[in-house]
């Protein structure tokens, strides 16, 4: 009997593939259902935001930072604000810092809800997505009351935040948290501990701690490898030292340590921690101004600095070079998704094609954050 002819298949996935979280593309070389390699092709959302920064000035760049990562824009706002404040040595009023933390942690909830919701959807469970999005809508309503926008917030300013909390907002926010905590339980009962779901995630896309650090994975992806590291705790910034919260890490409970299930569960548990931070922040909220006096014609002295913010997708690094004029000389933002995308090619080797979707979803990559 003559042997069957086999050949390697080259498949195109994306850029408009519903499960690729924005526009990103993979060129997959596959042997049947098993991938030899998936080569990511990014850049479809490149807007050269770093170049724009050089042309619009420090204050003018704040709305553009929203577009770096539009799913958790509060953190990009905060990162840019902090970099400028560090350059010009500005101190943010305490209430301003609290407002920042409150807005940012609500945004983390919204971002993680979107992440876990779309992850379930990518794997084939449609209903949990609607539950997650329903909760996210309510957070969006709260943030809309705060700053007038639901996605690209532009809430923070150099030196603080644009608006104080509106009257009655604090009570609404606390009431929402009372509603949210049981929802997390409901969500877990609905999907997290579903046997089929666990089997789809466990042991898929296992990342060892050495790999994670070598590839500079950050945030939940790093913590899922069992490494307790959070910029909020380990290089404290803003008023995070005022709050008590845990850093959830992966424990390999359902499969190998550092698999997709660990990454998923770290996000779920982080939401509970964010809720804790929010309660403390809303209760301890000090009085006072929310915005420091910053010159309209903002000209930080020449110099350069790097700051790190723990965004929903992990440690986000802003590197800013000032030449003493009203326009930054160079801005560079190193984001969590960029690093996470860099490791997919390596992880894809030997993975099933269907699991590539799981892998991308579990790394929580957001295309605009990769491309900027």
């Amino acid at each position, binding site marked *: 009997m003559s042997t069957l002819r086999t050949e390697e298949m080259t498949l195109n996935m994306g850029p408009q593939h519903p499960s690729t979280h924005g526009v990103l593309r993979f060129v997959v070389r596959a042997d049947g259902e098993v991938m030899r390699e998936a080569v990511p092709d*990014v*850049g479809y959302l*490149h807007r*050269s935001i*770093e*170049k724009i920064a050089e042309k619009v000035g420090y204050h003018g760049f704040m709305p553009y930072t929203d577009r770096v990562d539009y799913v958790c824009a509060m953190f990009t706002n905060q990162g840019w604000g902090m970099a400028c404040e*560090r*350059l010009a040595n500005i101190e943010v009023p305490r209430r301003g810092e609290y407002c920042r933390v409150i807005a940012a942690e609500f945004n983390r909830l919204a971002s993680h809800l979107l992440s876990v919701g779309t992850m379930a959807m990518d794997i084939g469970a449609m209903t949990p997505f609607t539950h997650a999005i329903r909760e996210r809508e309510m957070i969006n309503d709260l943030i809309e009351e705060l700053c007038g926008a639901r996605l690209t917030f532009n809430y923070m300013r150099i030196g603080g935040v644009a608006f104080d909390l509106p009257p009655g907002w604090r009570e609404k926010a606390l009431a929402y948290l009372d509603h949210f905590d049981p929802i997390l339980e409901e969500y877990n009962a609905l999907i997290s501990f579903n046997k089929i779901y666990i089997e789809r995630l466990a042991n898929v896309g296992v990342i060892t701690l050495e*790999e994670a*650090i*070598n*590839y*500079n994975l950050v945030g939940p992806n790093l913590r899922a490898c069992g*490494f307790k*590291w959070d910029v909020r705790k*380990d*290089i404290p910034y803003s008023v995070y030292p005022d709050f008590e919260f845990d850093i959830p890490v992966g424990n390999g409970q359902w499969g190998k340590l550092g698999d997709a299930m660990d990454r998923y569960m770290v996000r779920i548990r982080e939401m509970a921690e964010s809720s804790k931070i929010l309660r403390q922040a809303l209760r301890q909220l000090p009085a006072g101004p929310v915005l420091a006096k910053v010159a309209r014609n903002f000209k930080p002295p020449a*110099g*350069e*600095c*790097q700051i*790190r913010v723990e965004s929903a997708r992990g*440690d986000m*690094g802003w*590197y800013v*070079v000032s030449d003493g004029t009203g326009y930054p*000389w*160079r801005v*560079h933002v*190193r984001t969590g998704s*960029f*690093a996470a*995308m*860099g*490791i997919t090619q*390596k992880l894809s080797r030997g993975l099933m094609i269907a699991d590539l979707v799981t892998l991308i979803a579990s790394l929580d990559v957001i295309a605009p954050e990769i*491309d*900027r």
Partner: protein
Amino acid sequence: MEALAIYQRLTDQFGNKILETVTQKLDSFCVVDPSAIVELGQFLRDDPALAMDCLSNQSGVDYKDRIEVVYHLFSYQHRHGAVLKVKLPRENPVVHTLEGIWASANWMEREIFDLLGVTFEGHSDMRRILLPEDWEGFPLRKDFVEPLEYHGISTVRESPIIRLDPKAK
């Protein structure tokens, strides 16, 4: 270890390969000889007192007379960081890749190549990453002029406000 102590340790080890250490109020940095970047990287990662296991950020800056590549290193073990810079000529900026030491350099170097035109010697995949492969020029260079069109797609747009204004005609 404080950043300055790290630079001192590098100077003790590598002598004249460390060109200068710049102390400033914000992040201090040291400028190193581009030809020594690989051995420096190796030392920074493997020396137990430094143990820089993570290349946290790598970026390039165009200073009109030179291009600098900036390395932000970080050690999770010791919780300290260092900033290294290499200065390259603008005409033909070439420096050896650090991909073999920190895998995260792979993509960040591709990005610097793409946007600033720095070539990384020995890189496994030196292609454009964000821009299309047939793009001309390097946008983050200060003398970059945006082309008026790309494959017949205009990059400029007439302002609709001017169009609606009868006096503008």
